[in-house]
């Protein structure tokens, strides 16, 4: 009986926060390793379609990303609402597209230049016209490996919008 009583007088011990930095650092390192830096800020709307038969893009150094979509609201005043091409942080006209891609390929190390894949991140709502032109330009400069980048999901969800 007395065994339980004498504890009552003592104040509850504080929870030690000494290991909190360790926990937070662990989280920090986790996020540092699994994530990649955002390299371009989007200037076009970019809601990718869904597809189920997809392959992962493993080798990031061989990738050139091309965004296609309607310019976001703050650019619509000057550019209108027709789909545009964005490479890095710039809008590229279709006439200069081939040259811009060639420039990007040239910037890569010589041994991987022939394995470059162009990843097309195209907004769902875009029409095929511009994409056909893009494909034609890519064929002209002999960059034939392309990837229609999509989200994983049921492709029939694309049709209901």
């Amino acid at each position, binding site marked *: 009986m007395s065994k339980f009583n004498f504890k009552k007088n003592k104040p509850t011990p504080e929870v030690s926060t000494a290991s909190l930095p360790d926990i937070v650092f662990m989280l920090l390192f986790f996020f540092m390793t699994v*994530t990649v830096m955002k390299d371009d800020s989007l200037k076009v709307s970019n809601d990718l379609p869904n*597809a189920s038969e997809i392959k*992962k893009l493993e080798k990031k150094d061989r990738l050139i990303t091309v965004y296609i979509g309607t310019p976001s609201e703050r650019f619509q005043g000057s550019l209108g609402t027709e789909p545009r091409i964005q490479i890095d942080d710039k809008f590229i006209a279709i006439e200069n597209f081939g040259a811009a891609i060639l420039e990007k390929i040239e910037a890569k190390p010589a041994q991987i230049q022939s394995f470059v894949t162009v990843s097309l991140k195209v907004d769902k709502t875009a029409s*095929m*016209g511009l994409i056909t032109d893009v494909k034609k330009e890519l064929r002209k400069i002999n960059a*034939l490996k*392309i990837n*229609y980048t*999509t989200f994983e999901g049921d492709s029939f969800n694309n049709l209901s919008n």
Partner: protein
Amino acid sequence: MGRRAGAPEVNAGSMADIAFLLLIFFLVTTTIETDAGLDRMLPPIEPPETDVIIKQKNIFQVSINKNGQLLADDELTDLKDLRQKAVDFLDNNGDGTCTYCKGKKNPESSDNPTKAIISLKNDRETKYSTYITVQNELVGAYNELRNREAKRLYNRTFVNLEEEYLSPESKEKLDEDALDELKAKVKRIQDLFPQKLSEAETSSSN
């Protein structure tokens, strides 16, 4: 006397705050992205030197109009039926030379999988989402047949096989012989049903 007690300890209480600040910075500036998508090869711009004559029955023509309607082999087709139609076409085995095919041997359809070509045409005003759905279904048809053969030969799906072959982890885990074996398996299945998906240039005239 006081000096003997050693250097005073540094207060580490703010360490957590510093770490949190870093953590939040990384959370905001980074994205977890594993990009994935449909791989395609574009045809080279130079026309092939020798004109290959392809029999009409070996071509499965898929056209998408600007309203998203689908014409597969001159029939108005629902998107949901496209995959099965493509599978039937590829697996048809019209000339009976394909020993692993299970098709109907319809003489009006493709001779064998190595000759069968799927041609995809679209209008300039076709929506991209529709186009991707069609692409997805056609790749799905190939994968379905390849999976079937991979299951029969190696007791696992082709998608699974290819994923292991392409992933960077397996390059580290496996030795050269195992990797070569894996490559040979993938190649063999691909050769059974070679992916011949032609993306013809868009023509507004037809």
